[in-house]
């Protein structure tokens, strides 16, 4: 017999969830759907009927917390980028580029917003005006990310990453080079390292102070989801049957084996979400399984068993700022809420 469900609340949107995000303030959740709409709900166990807003004519390709700490930023295949304020009745159009796709968006805590169209990244200031010239790259941009202090923008592409200073207008970028196609890009919380997920199902990283490089391999699939755990201790990653966590302390990741959490027989982790404060990582799988795994070697807690018969992928996983609510979006259109209370209830029943 299966134990009590760890799910506190559940919504069925009947259309695949393509991404979910939490705003910077950590009190609202946005979920973009395969029909181009967005659903918004408070990031707490008070979460009630999600608010529906039409958004893109096609579909959102990138959803992030906005520079406005209350809002979200979304770019889509209709060439539009929107700012979504959960308190307003409609999203605000930021830019429109007809017949093009906005592949990636990013925002900085300092108020800058960036988006990319193919090889070109555009940066806008807090007023929505261009901040410097468009930034061109040798090939299409695979990922965009501002450094934690907002002073630099990283754009990944084929054969490396370009780092642009935001206060030096029209300057050339510094290039981090490594052969191959680089996709998602991530800064360490201290801003000292940059890591990318690659087409070759591997990670590559650079320590900026001395350009020491790191290669992290052994994955079964491309790494779409990577995030540092609380205080930057581990880098948690998707792309394998277990959650692969690379140590970024004690000289690591150089020469260190990763810690592995959870495990599945033949199914892969699609999303990871480190807890904002504690040494815990939530992970979602391509068959719908969701686990919560401590980094201290204790047994993981099963939040959702694989979905029968063939499963469906977890496409979004995010904590609220308080770390007491975890939201999961699935390809089957379900949005799930797990709370500390519902999880401990289920854990006791196990």
């Amino acid at each position, binding site marked *: 017999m299966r134990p009590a469900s760890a799910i506190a609340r559940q919504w069925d949107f009947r259309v695949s969830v393509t991404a979910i995000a939490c705003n910077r303030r950590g009190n609202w959740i946005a979920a973009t759907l395969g029909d181009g709409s967005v659903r918004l709900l408070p990031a707490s166990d008070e979460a009630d009927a999600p608010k529906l807003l039409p958004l893109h004519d096609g*579909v959102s390709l990138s959803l992030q917390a906005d520079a406005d700490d209350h809002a979200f930023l979304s770019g889509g295949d209709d060439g539009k980028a929107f700012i979504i304020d959960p308190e307003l009745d409609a999203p605000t159009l930021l830019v429109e580029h007809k017949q093009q796709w906005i592949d990636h968006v990013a925002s900085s805590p300092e108020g800058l917003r960036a988006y990319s169209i193919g090889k070109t990244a555009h940066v806008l200031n807090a007023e929505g005006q261009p901040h410097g010239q468009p930034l061109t790259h040798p090939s*299409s941009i695979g990922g965009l990310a501002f450094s934690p202090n907002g002073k630099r923008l990283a754009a990944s592409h*084929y054969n490396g990453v370009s780092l642009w200073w935001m206060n030096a207008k029209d300057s050339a970028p510094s290039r981090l080079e490594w052969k191959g196609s680089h996709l998602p890009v991530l800064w360490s919380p201290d801003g000292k390292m940059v890591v990318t997920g690659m*087409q*070759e199902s591997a990670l590559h990283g650079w320590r900026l102070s001395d350009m020491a490089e790191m290669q992290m391999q052994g994955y079964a699939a491309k790494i779409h989801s990577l995030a540092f755990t609380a205080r930057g201790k581990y880098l948690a990653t998707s792309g394998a049957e277990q959650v692969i966590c690379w140590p970024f302390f004690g000289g690591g990741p150089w020469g260190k084996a990763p810690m592995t959490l959870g495990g599945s027989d033949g199914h892969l982790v699609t999303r990871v979400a480190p807890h904002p404060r504690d040494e815990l990582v939530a992970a979602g799988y391509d068959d719908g399984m969701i686990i919560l795994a401590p980094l201290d070697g204790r047994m993981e807690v099963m939040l959702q068993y694989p979905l029968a018969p*063939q499963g469906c992928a977890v496409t979004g996983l995010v904590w609220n700022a308080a770390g007491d609510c975890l939201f999961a979006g699935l390809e089957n259109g379900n949005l799930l809420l797990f709370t500390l209370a519902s999880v401990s209830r289920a854990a006791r029943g196990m």
Partner: protein
Amino acid sequence: MTDAKIPVTVLTGYLGAGKTTLLNHILSEPHGKKYAVIVNEFGEIGIDNQLVVGSDEEIFEMNNGCICCTVRGDLIRVIAGLLKRAAGFDGILIETTGLADPAPVAQTFFVDADIAARAKLDSIVTVVDAKHLPLRLRDSREAEEQIAFADTIVLNKTDLVSAEELAQLENDIHAINRFARIVRAERGNAPLEHILGLGGFDLDRILAHTPTFLHDEDEDEHEHHHNHGCGGHCQCGHHHHHHDEPKHERHDPTITSVSLRADKPLDPAKFEDWIGELRATKGNDLLRYKGILDLQGSDQRFVLQGVHMMMDGSNLAPWPADAKRQSRLVFIGRKLDEQALRDGFAACVA
């Protein structure tokens, strides 16, 4: 979710051969289906209500030690974006530039697991201009490669050449690519059943279509005579000339087809060693290959197909009780050493 995979059709062809005309023909036929179209340049697609996406061809080498392993980075990005749409289209059509090498397009569907899970390459359709093909074959390596990779050749603008020239063209095409189906057209008006839904890369379709691409040795003899004029089996509807008539500037092919047959079962281990070695050492020159094998110790027909070093094979169906058990294998490639292939294959007999 677990919907059937989205079929993808690739349209290649030299500049001016009539790709866009064929594309418009496909889109405007009353088939009731909706296609997402990936084009290199906007402009001449005259159909509203279709999802048209512009994309620059970006060829990425995979950093995995396989020299011929290239993929189309732009397709990975665009198809992944298209697949986020919950509803929208029945298939994807990719129009390549005139000089495009079809190999990276095909390999993208082997190499990228995310795409392979949701979309499948249905076939490569190459449009050739009947009037200019002989010239193209003399001066363009790309034109020859596009023919070599094709499942279907649309021989377009047939109204601009004589019946004799047409017959010669078909012979020239078949000398390069033994298993392509040639469809004649005047202004891109090829029947859609020869363009869409072909399953050119499906192993089970290879079984179903055995007779059309794997000729008997005897037929090969006919085929050979064909090449010197217009042999007995052509449908060009005129009386048959002697060898080398009509006068025709012969294309000296660097790409050829070699078809192999064995009437005794093959030793699976020997075959695996041979094909493995061949792929490793000659993979760059092997463009496409397909085969149905009778392996010793198995009652199943083993079906395989490949592009360069990438091969896909499986035991598919039992031999029919009344069928002659026989192994057949066809290679299309550059600088094929026919005798070495024959000897190597013969040595695999158990």
